[in-house]
């Protein structure tokens, strides 16, 4: 299989890179100067049969069209919003992702963000490290247990967040495209009502045309000055400028963000707020999960090139 060309879109997990290197003819896109990319793709377009992408760097129509022998796009992520699925489908290109193996980690991070925002864990840590504790107590934070939690998107990750939050005595409600009759939580067919009825709103849905900016000013205002927003979905789920002004004006109590509209850029005003927790898109960034995700990417590629059923196809 060493002759099969695989294009790696950006630096990813070293274990994944090494395995791809040893099993395939690996091309590293980021090692090409931007001006030489078209030429590079042209020279290698016959060999490249697979692309490995992730949450940050996608696969658009232009790239797809420049690789006439492309058979499969294997994403090192569960989200595939940056892959032009329509173009892939048109051309019979398979697309795979990494669901399930990262569900727990992302759900854990959702809960971690809630606790960190409400209980001010990062400022507390800073308070002790700076020596300020010797001058007086920290001040009071906000309780998490028993607060009403609203989840946008009750898929694998949303359900896992719900299960965890329930153990803290929280009541769970949700909004999604359709109601899930098997789930014992209260359903709201519109997100504004969900926001009105919870004090912690967690975004856990996939990014589609319908969910772009699903958290807008109206939703933020409904969540209110005592509400907090947690985003472990995609930055584009939230109208970021609206979020920033709501936080600056005190119309929202706090936010825990793992994703942003233009990563790795984070709106400058957020960097100075102590009622927000800002993480660098680490939802699935544990050794255990990255290993499992890498194995799944490799398994999908191996299955495809051995004409076996794909373990986790999107299309």
């Amino acid at each position, binding site marked *: 299989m060493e002759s099969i060309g695989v294009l790696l879109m950006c630096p990813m997990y070293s274990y994944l890179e090494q395995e791809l290197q040893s099993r395939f003819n690996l091309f590293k896109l980021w090692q090409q100067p931007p001006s030489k990319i078209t030429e590079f793709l042209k020279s290698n377009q016959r060999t490249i049969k697979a692309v490995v992408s992730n949450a940050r760097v996608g696969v658009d129509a232009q790239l797809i069209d420049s690789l006439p022998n492309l058979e499969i796009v294997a994403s090192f992520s569960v989200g595939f919003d940056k892959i032009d699925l329509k173009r892939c489908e048109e051309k019979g290109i398979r697309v795979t992702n990494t669901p399930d193996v990262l569900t*727990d980690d992302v759900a854990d991070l959702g809960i971690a963000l809630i606790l960190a925002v409400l209980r001010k864990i*990062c400022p507390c840590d800073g*308070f*002790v490290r700076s020596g300020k504790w010797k001058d007086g107590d920290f001040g009071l*934070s906000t309780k998490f247990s028993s607060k009403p939690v609203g989840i946008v998107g009750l898929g694998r990750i949303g359900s896992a967040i719900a299960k965890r939050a329930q153990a803290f005595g929280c009541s769970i409600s949700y909004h999604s495209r359709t109601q899930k009759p098997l789930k014992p939580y209260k359903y709201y067919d519109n997100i504004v009502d969900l926001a009105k009825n919870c004090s912690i709103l967690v975004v856990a849905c996939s990014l589609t045309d319908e969910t772009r900016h699903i958290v807008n000013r109206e939703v933020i205002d409904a969540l209110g000055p005592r509400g907090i927003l947690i985003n472990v979905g995609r930055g584009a789920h939230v109208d970021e400028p609206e979020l920033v002004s709501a936080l600056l004006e005190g119309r929202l109590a706090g936010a825990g963000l793992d994703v942003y509209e233009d990563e790795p*850029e984070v709106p400058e005003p957020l960097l100075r707020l102590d009622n927000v927790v800002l*993480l*660098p898109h680490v939802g699935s960034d544990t050794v*255990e999960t990255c290993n499992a995700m890498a194995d799944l990417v490799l398994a999908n590629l191996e299955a495809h090139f051995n004409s076996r059923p794909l373990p986790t196809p999107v299309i």
Partner: protein
Amino acid sequence: MESIAVLMTKPIYSYLQAELEKRFKVLKLWEAQDGSRFLQDQNQIIRAVVSDGGTGLSPELMAALPKLEIVSSFSVGMDKIDLGKCKEKGIRVSNTPDVLTDDVADLAIGLTLAVLRKLPASDRYVRSGMWKKGDFKLGTKFSGKSVGIVGLGRIGQAIATRAEAFGCKISYHSRTPKPESSNYTYYPSVVDLAAHSDILVVACALTNETRHIINREVIDALGPRGVLVNIARGATVDEPELVSALVEGRLGGAGLDVFENEPNVPEQLIELDEKVVLAPHAGSGTEETRKGMADLVVGNLVAHFEGKELLTPVV
């Protein structure tokens, strides 16, 4: 009741003080120029003491108050009150159990997640602009790990319930096994508990038996990939041993809300900014819970002086 003199040992919480002042004659020990003189002058009228977990009731203070009938502590921990002596002298003692159980358990989970997923370090990474230069390092998964709890009382049980929702395997050590917790594995030895845990959480009361219950042997059993979380009392842990284990890499990480000599924290812990998360004894420090605790302190005093059953008696 307004003539009953209640001594506050320190300024604890303004809401508590205000509620006490509505009902009693509140004497403030910290405002006295000469504490002993003040007590001498007032010792015939002081019938109650309100204190907190860290200050308790010193033997000197007990000796100075011959008319003392009740100590109402703004804490669940009783380690700074000589309960045996109080019983001997017929002095009632009340604490604030249950109202703070959720908050302390929440912080235990919050600290665990913050250590494993490197939350404060990741947040600093974003704020410092480092994310623009490259991704942060990987953390460690929480879900599915083995959690060992030292002390399966109210707080220990609440921690177990939460950790279970993350698919964690729960085991515990306590003075005696708890038959109603048969789904958790009991270890008669803390060292064995540590050897079988990825995360060891200290949640027991501080007594003569539990002083330094977490010693070098336990820490070594927990090991270089293990994490210690302490939301109980600093003195349950041999702090110098903990510090050297972390510095030498013999322990993977720690989440600490309590220390042997608060508010002093060993300098080396402050230097370990990735594997250690520190909090300023904030376990019950939320608006909701402190108010609940204050109401309980006042409620116990009122009950006592009305000749009724104490709400939450210890002695």
